[in-house]
């Protein structure tokens, strides 16, 4: 049995999961069960960060992956963000990097600028 806090939403349910049968308890909704299973098999995280922007009101543009990516790719994705620079104007939701590090996820803009 492994105990963990579900991080999918701020409720933070206390989950327990059987590492062999992958049966989860303590989740309030189905997303918690999926989270617990993933944590055992292949942990996933949404990555948030920023990229440089020229011609905007600030020098950094907030971005995020449009869905969770393997936790093991976190630092590789950060390096891709560091290497990236965009030009204003940008709209919230615009794709900044397609299929980032081969994860199938896109990096999207978090705001207009």
């Amino acid at each position: 049995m492994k105990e963990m806090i579900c991080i999918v939403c701020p409720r933070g349910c206390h989950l327990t999961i059987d590492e062999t049968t992958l049966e989860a308890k303590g989740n309030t909704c189905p997303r918690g069960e999926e989270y617990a299973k993933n944590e055992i098999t292949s942990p996933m995280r949404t990555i948030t960060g920023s990229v440089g922007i020229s011609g905007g009101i600030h020098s950094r543009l907030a971005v995020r992956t449009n869905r969770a990516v393997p936790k093991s790719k976190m630092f590789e994705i950060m390096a891709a963000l560091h290497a990236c620079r965009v030009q204003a104007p940008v709209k919230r939701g615009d794709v900044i990097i397609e299929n980032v590090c081969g994860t199938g996820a896109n990096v999207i803009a978090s705001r207009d600028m």
Partner: protein
Amino acid sequence: MTKHDIVIIGAGPAGLAAAVAAYEAGVKDILLLERDCEAGGILNQCIHNGFGLHRFGEELSGPEYAGKYIDMLKSTDVKLQLGTTVLNIENKIVSAVSEANGFEQFEAKAIILAMGCRERNRGPISVPGDRGKGVFTAGAAQRYLNIEGYLVGKKIVILGSGDIGLIMARRMTLEGAKVLAVSEIMPFTNGLSRNVAQCLEDFDIPLYLSHTVTKVIGKDSLEGIEISKVDENMKPIKGTEKYFECDTLLLSVGLVPENELTRQAGIDLDLRTRGASVGEDMQTSEEGVFACGNVLHVHDLVDYVSAESERAGRSAAKYVLGTAAAEKDGLNVNVGLNLGYTVPQRINRVNVEKGVDIFFRVRKKIRVGEIRVESNGEKIASFKREFLAPAEMEKITVPKVLLDKANGSITVSAIDLEEEAK
């Protein structure tokens, strides 16, 4: 002096939601004043995700959440005036200053306070030792990094385990800094459990509970930090010192509602929340002045900020349109056992349709608990709750039928059922 139906101070998530709700409730002449160069408040620097699951059913980053409300605002005729700092409120006259217009005054029928909160800095918590460069509040470091692109240090110790500190521990690690320790004086964390899991555990950042900073070393710039374990009376225990060589100390020791304007206006403040004392309609002790969001009490979830602020916006609209109930059937809300505070602090039952939401924080961790509502020593409502913690704001909804049993006042308390069973 120009006249407006409603003047709102602060265009963070609270001010934005209040403006949109008041507009939708039928008041068209609304002025929203913001000192920053853009709307969105603190959310603009909170680039991590975890916002909006309640409100929008999807997980958004702070700027995305703010962006959705800014879009809603744009679809109304609410006038947003940026770069304008409010200096004073007196008798429904709001005085403000801006680079564009200089000193200005606005006369309002109703005012909504939505100024948010500020971070505690090391003044009030007195960190001992030298005063070199390299000490920042976590929120200031967040703003530098996320908006301006400066990483304030490479080797970091964080004092306090509030959410901002936890979020910054992850953020700076991802940006290549090394977070050596998070030191929390209490035996429990001040942040959400999910942030401990995804910000510290994911990166093997050690969390020292019941530890505090006992020495800050470095004359011109920070060179190191010593932390020690504390006893039950929060006194450092000799011989437990640990030393970390570091260039940065981040303080994440809590937020305080920004109520300078409220105090000057002579509005009653609640010593527990450090915000205005309000009714279920978010009205303060001054008629026609409403408050919502972090200026009222520190929230950890912006979704609750929006819900509360929409209520404030609707109440202000009713007040302006003259449709607010004139009669009063007031109940005071008292803080009982194990409770830190409640919002609202009073309830006018005339305004309650189906039920009333009462927000509160507990003062200690309770695994299995009961939230009890009593009036004159008699139990009128009870709610089962698990895993209550001071770091997490909780809510109960008391149905009108039960509220009608109360007389004069109600007292809300949190019973630790495991302790009671012993």
